[in-house]
């Protein structure tokens, strides 16, 4: 069950403000990092919605991310649509694919669900990789950015793009929180807790799962469209299964089923990787060890652990009172 608690509000606002400050005060590369953090945080939040609250651990979110990017890039470059419409195309593509995967896999659970999503994701990857009309493995260059000059925002500037990405992250978080607090979100959590009972109550389980996946897909697609505008280039590399794995790692590092955790995890992973990569070429190993230690330490993740401690203290206080 999701509650927008005080600590959630405080941490997400602090994180957004911290990112904005880092972008404003840091150099050029700091802004690149902030944009990467914001896009990956959106992807991780979309994953946390289905994995943390719906119990559907997906290994195809990287592909949805890539589909969103390709949807945007193809619409904007090959079809010549204005970037605003292309953005809609990217989001729609993510939602469609997500909804389809959610609908077909609604009966599988556990490792079978993970593998089924992996299979669908890999199919998309292979098809795009082989699609010469879309540039094949070379990818598509020349992807434009949204034109927000009417609002006085110039997305060609790295600082303004970084601030724009942070704003997007805030909006997506608010949307996800809104959905999870709604009746739909509560039913989703109910299915996660006891699917048989929800079924017995007459809830059309597969429909809920498909809708949740579609919504999550829309968000992941949006993250992809954002990433495509950031790099102004898309390639199949964006949708390899390890990208899905990385999204999962981010969710775990921050704290699954907390919604704030994924955003914290994205900042943690990107900054950590950046710092370690400047010291050694063997940063994979360090990330691997951090991941193992995180899980061994209880698996709550950085933010999850914080939330857990705050709640435990509050309950103790209540017991004393």
């Amino acid at each position, binding site marked *: 069950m999701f509650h927008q608690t005080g600590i959630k509000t405080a941490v997400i606002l602090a994180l957004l403000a911290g990112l904005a400050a880092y972008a404003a005060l840091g150099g050029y590369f700091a802004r690149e990092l902030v944009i990467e953090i914001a896009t990956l945080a959106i992807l991780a939040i979309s994953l946390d919605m289905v994995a943390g609250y719906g119990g559907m*651990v997906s290994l195809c979110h990287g592909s949805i991310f890539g589909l969103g990017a390709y949807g945007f890039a193809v619409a904007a470059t090959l079809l010549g649509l204005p970037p605003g419409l292309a953005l809609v195309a990217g989001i729609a593509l993510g939602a469609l694919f997500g909804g389809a995967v959610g609908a*077909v*896999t609604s*009966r*599988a*659970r*556990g*490792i*079978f669900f*993970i*593998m*089924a999503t*992996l*299979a*669908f994701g*890999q*199919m998309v990857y*292979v*098809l795009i*990789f*082989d699609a010469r009309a879309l540039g094949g493995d070379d990818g598509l260059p020349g992807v434009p950015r949204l034109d927000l000059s009417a609002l006085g925002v110039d997305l060609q500037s790295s600082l303004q793009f970084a601030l724009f990405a942070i704003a997007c992250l805030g909006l997506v978080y608010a949307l996800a929180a809104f959905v999870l607090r709604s009746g739909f979100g509560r039913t989703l959590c109910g299915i996660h807790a006891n699917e048989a009972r929800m079924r017995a109550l007459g809830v059309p389980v597969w429909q809920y799962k498909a809708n949740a996946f579609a919504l999550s897909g829309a968000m992941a697609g949006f993250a992809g469209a954002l990433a495509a505008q950031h790099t102004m280039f898309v390639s199949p590399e964006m949708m390899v*299964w390890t990208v899905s*794995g990385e999204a*999962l*790692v981010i969710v*775990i590092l921050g704290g*699954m089923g907390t919604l704030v955790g994924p955003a914290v995890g994205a900042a943690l992973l990107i900054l950590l990787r950046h710092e370690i990569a400047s010291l050694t070429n*063997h940063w*994979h*190993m360090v*990330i*691997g*060890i*951090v*991941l*193992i230690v*995180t*899980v*061994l330490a209880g*698996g709550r993740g950085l933010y999850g652990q914080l939330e857990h401690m705050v709640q435990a203290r509050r309950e103790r206080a209540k017991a004393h009172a």
Partner: protein
Amino acid sequence: MLADPSTWIVQGLNGLQLSMLLFLLSVGLTVIFGLLHFVNLAHGALYALGAYAGVSAVWMLGSYWAAFVLAPAAVALAGTVLYLGLIRRMRRSGPMNQVLVTFGLIFVFLDIFRIVWGDIALGIDAPAFLSGPVEVLGVAYPAYRLFIIALGAAVMAGLGLVLSRTQIGAMIRAGVDNDRMAACLGLNVERIFFVVFCVGCALAGLAGVVAAPVFSVTPDMGTQILIPTLIVVVIGGLGSLKGAVAGSLIVGFTQTFGAVLAPQLAAVAVYALLAGILIFRPAGLFPARG
């Protein structure tokens, strides 16, 4: 060309060879899952470790057969360390956490391979008397590939016998069926778990050293083979020997004949197969439990 029967015989053998290699890899993974309920994504890394240990053994001792014996032993040893240090305490912590810890292990192994054996792809030669082609069923076929087929079949038969006819086999089956009940009946479940885990690792190592003369030995070879192996396990149904056999044959032959008949679709074929099976049989073809 496609009417020529000898081509079909060779392609059939190719499919069988790939299937046997996949079987060696997936049987350990699936039995470990069935018994310990443990999802080990690092199984592919253990396969790579087997290949690298084999390379080192050949370099030091100059004999493929020494490597053939030592590499599985080395991987079983690594498995022991992993089991005692990590796996045992992860057993009760849910599939999600297991997936993540072993995902982390993949990263760790990847860099260990790079540090110890370097970034450049390595290779070893098949033993001299198995290196050339031999005449079989009227066609010339690499002797070493026939050796892989024979080895896979032997392991398959051996495991089948052990599981169905011996006391330890009965214990393992009881454990897969219901580990708590088996423990209540006085079986030392912990020890069975440990043994099965090590044997599974040794088989992954065996697959690695057997594959080394055919493929190249690279740090990411384990990651590459992981997904086909998982597909085998999931198609077959987790935890069953029958499932591993069926899954390996299905995937091996789909890949081989997909490559021949529809090269454009070969890369998608296996994923489409997996997706299709999971839609209609969400627990695989031969799940170990009802």
